[in-house]
């Protein structure tokens, strides 16, 4: 299976607007585990319907309150579901509209599960949230600047060995934070796939 940008379908989830579709009562605040679970099931269901490689954008711009329980169910468990070999589809996750009040619960749940999530954070820009290693963080940032690059090119920019950087980028792809290219060992930053 190829995963290059030409094969990736962009699909955007407005988290706030998904809530009323997933639970009976309309809530603009993302709180409680059942709400998070309903949200995750809704997203998984739509990803399954797409049935192809996709970049799913988790949009927090209309979310006022995000609690830890809901973040754990909706975001951490969603990313975990798409990591193993038996994952439902090739989905990669990018958060946007992340304000400071969202960032802390997101960081906490990602760290607890050992996950990462590329995010467009208000006032900061693109950031890798969660629990990356130092080399993963550096590699992700270098790829973010380049948009598309091979492990060798990232290694050169970072003054690291190509083998170490290739391993870091593979880990980031497994963790759904970068997309491996069609050929030639290239990788794509998720934000490069946005219009």
């Amino acid at each position, binding site marked *: 299976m190829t995963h290059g940008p030409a094969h990736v379908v962009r699909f955007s989830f407005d988290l706030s607007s998904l809530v009323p579709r997933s639970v009976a*009562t309309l*809530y603009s*605040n993302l*709180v*409680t*585990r*059942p*709400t998070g679970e309903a949200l995750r099931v809704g997203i998984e269901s739509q990803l399954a319907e797409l049935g192809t490689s996709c970049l799913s954008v988790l949009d927090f711009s209309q979310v*006022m*309150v*995000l*609690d*830890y*329980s809901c973040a*754990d*169910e909706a975001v*951490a*468990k969603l990313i975990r579901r798409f990591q193993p070999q038996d994952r439902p589809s090739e989905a990669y996750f990018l958060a946007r509209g992340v*304000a*400071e*009040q969202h960032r*802390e*619960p997101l960081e*906490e*749940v990602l760290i*607890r*599960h050992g996950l990462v999530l590329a995010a467009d954070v208000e006032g900061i820009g693109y950031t890798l949230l969660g629990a990356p290693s130092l080399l993963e963080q550096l590699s992700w940032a270098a790829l973010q600047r380049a948009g598309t690059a091979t492990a060798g090119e990232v290694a050169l920019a970072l003054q690291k060995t190509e083998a170490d950087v290739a391993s870091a980028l593979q880990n980031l792809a497994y963790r759904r934070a970068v997309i491996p290219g069609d050929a030639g060992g290239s990788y794509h930053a998720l934000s490069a796939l946005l219009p």
Partner: protein
Amino acid sequence: MKLITLPASLDERYFEPIARALLAPADERVLFDGTHVRWVDPYGLIGLLAVGQALRARGPELPALKLPENSEVASYMARMGFFTHAEPIFELHGGQRRARSEGASDVLLEITAVNSHADVHAVVDHVNERGLRILTTQLAYPQREAFQFSVILSEMCQNIIEHAETGGWVASQRYQWKKRLNRKVVIIAVMDLGVGFRHSLAPTHATRYPDAWTDAAALEAAFMHGHTRFHDPGRGQGIQQIRKLVARWGGRISIRSGSARIADVPAWDDGPRLEQNLPYLPGAQIGIVLPARVASEERVAAAPGS
């Protein structure tokens, strides 16, 4: 009949004399005399409901409650919705039971029953409508931190539903603490009469404490170490995150469960960190005090346990 004279200040500091009502024989009726109550806060109000409910569960006779003579206190109790929740629990005597019209209120959240996740949503929606204004304008909390107040309430209320296996209550109010802190504060109380920490954690953690699995041990396991009955790594973070936020804002948090109470005690408070051998009260009773932000104040940088 056992007579319990309610203290002049009905709050967490003077809660234990109320809880001593539970030491009465099961067949002895209890009368709470609130005649001379001069001040009451959410912890005192919900605490009284909790003790009354625990007594109510022991026998057919309702405990009796003589209401305060002070009309301001009685009016405040009415405004907080106390009587609505108290009527099925107590035989009420005396006092006015109507709230006077007093203009803008500093109530962030009246006494609210928490029985389901829908109640948690209602609490958060309600606080976002009214409480955020109080937090930002009167306690000088930045908007983003005011939202975290809603997160605290949400996580605390969810603890009732996920761990207590019964319902509970929550309430919050702003005060001016002139003597203790010379600052405005917000007080939050969340209580239930459920299984409590010791029973909730026992199946997964009691074996680590042979012969010493007490209420205090269970509270330390959950409060200090984030242990939970669930094996899911995403669980057990609610209390830890609440402690972190409360510490960041220079506040105080305590949890009483069974016969013990544990607390994060800030510099402005002189209360003990751990109390044991208290009168047994089922479930969990949580009290939080959040002081107003002061411009020159250095925020507590370190999270608990870090």
